[in-house]
């Protein structure tokens, strides 16, 4: 992360953000990837990844986070997640004649690559939920900035 002196919050908040963001992203990825073995799944993992980016937004300001993931890239990832869920369902339809069929091999339980295509569904939901909540937060912060500029 770039350090800018005159934007965002104080030194303490920025340093704690630097330490915490990595852990938040890793824990979010863990919750997504092990969603079929331990409690968790695509929805909480996606929100956790979105919260990591929202923490950067709060600490460093909007310009720094938009240089990492711009609003347009977030929007495209959001649409891609929704489309990926649909395409996975259509692949299941093509393989077996049932929409959203679990078409991959089951594997042995308690392994990471078990439970067929559930891990792919979880990744699609992660993209969908995480990126959509992130761009909603970006849109709200832009709107608030416009309102405060007008009030000044």
């Amino acid at each position, binding site marked *: 992360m770039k350090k800018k002196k005159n934007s965002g919050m104080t030194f303490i908040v920025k340093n704690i953000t630097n330490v915490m963001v990595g852990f938040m992203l890793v824990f979010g990825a863990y919750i997504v990837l092990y969603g079929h073995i331990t409690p968790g*799944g695509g929805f909480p993992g996606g929100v956790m990844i979105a919260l990591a980016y*929202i923490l950067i937004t*709060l600490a460093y300001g909007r310009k720094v986070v938009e240089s990492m993931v711009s609003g347009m890239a977030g929007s495209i990832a959001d649409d891609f997640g929704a489309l990926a869920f649909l395409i996975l369902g259509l692949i299941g339809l093509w393989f077996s004649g049932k929409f959203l069929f679990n078409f991959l091999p089951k594997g042995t339980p308690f392994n990471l690559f*078990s439970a*067929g295509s559930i891990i792919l569904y979880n990744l699609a939901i992660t993209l969908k*939920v995480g990126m959509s909540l992130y761009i909603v937060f970006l849109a709200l912060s832009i709107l608030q900035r416009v309102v405060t500029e007008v009030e000044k």
Partner: protein
Amino acid sequence: METIIILHILLVFMIIGSIITIEIKNMLSAVIAIGSVGFILSIMFLFLGAPDIAITQVIVEILSLIILIRSTINVDNVSIEKKEEHVLSNRTTLIFVGVILVFAWFAFRSLPPFGEPLMRISNYYLNNGLRDVGATNFVTSVILDYRAYDTFGEAMVLFVSISGAFAILRRWKREQHKDFLRIDREH
């Protein structure tokens, strides 16, 4: 038995938090009170043995608290002026709630009593889930294999609602609004 006593104590705290949220004048205090309701709800999910829902509840509660605090912290948070309420809107709300209650009465009378066929479908999932799906977290195997179509519908609901939010918050509307406010200020 102890679990039920703990759940009732937590329920009392949730009701107190909701009443504080409605009655308090300061906006920021109201947001913090509604946050306490959500966190107590996640503790209740943990006591009921649903860690999936508890994780989701905590995470979504944090996100909504951040958004609510950020949107209310710059607002003049002394008090809300009481405006004259439209009479028709109150009546319409009452009529709709009444109609829903009447239909709910007829609908719930045709359902079986609470907990009567005890865990018939869930027993099927618990017995055959590992063989059918291969996932050791049965909640995931239900929401993404047995009931994947419902999850697909929920994802589409989120997609449509966020598209609607962007249609309202789109840029040219904001520019127009800014010009409008500026003209208003000059006068």
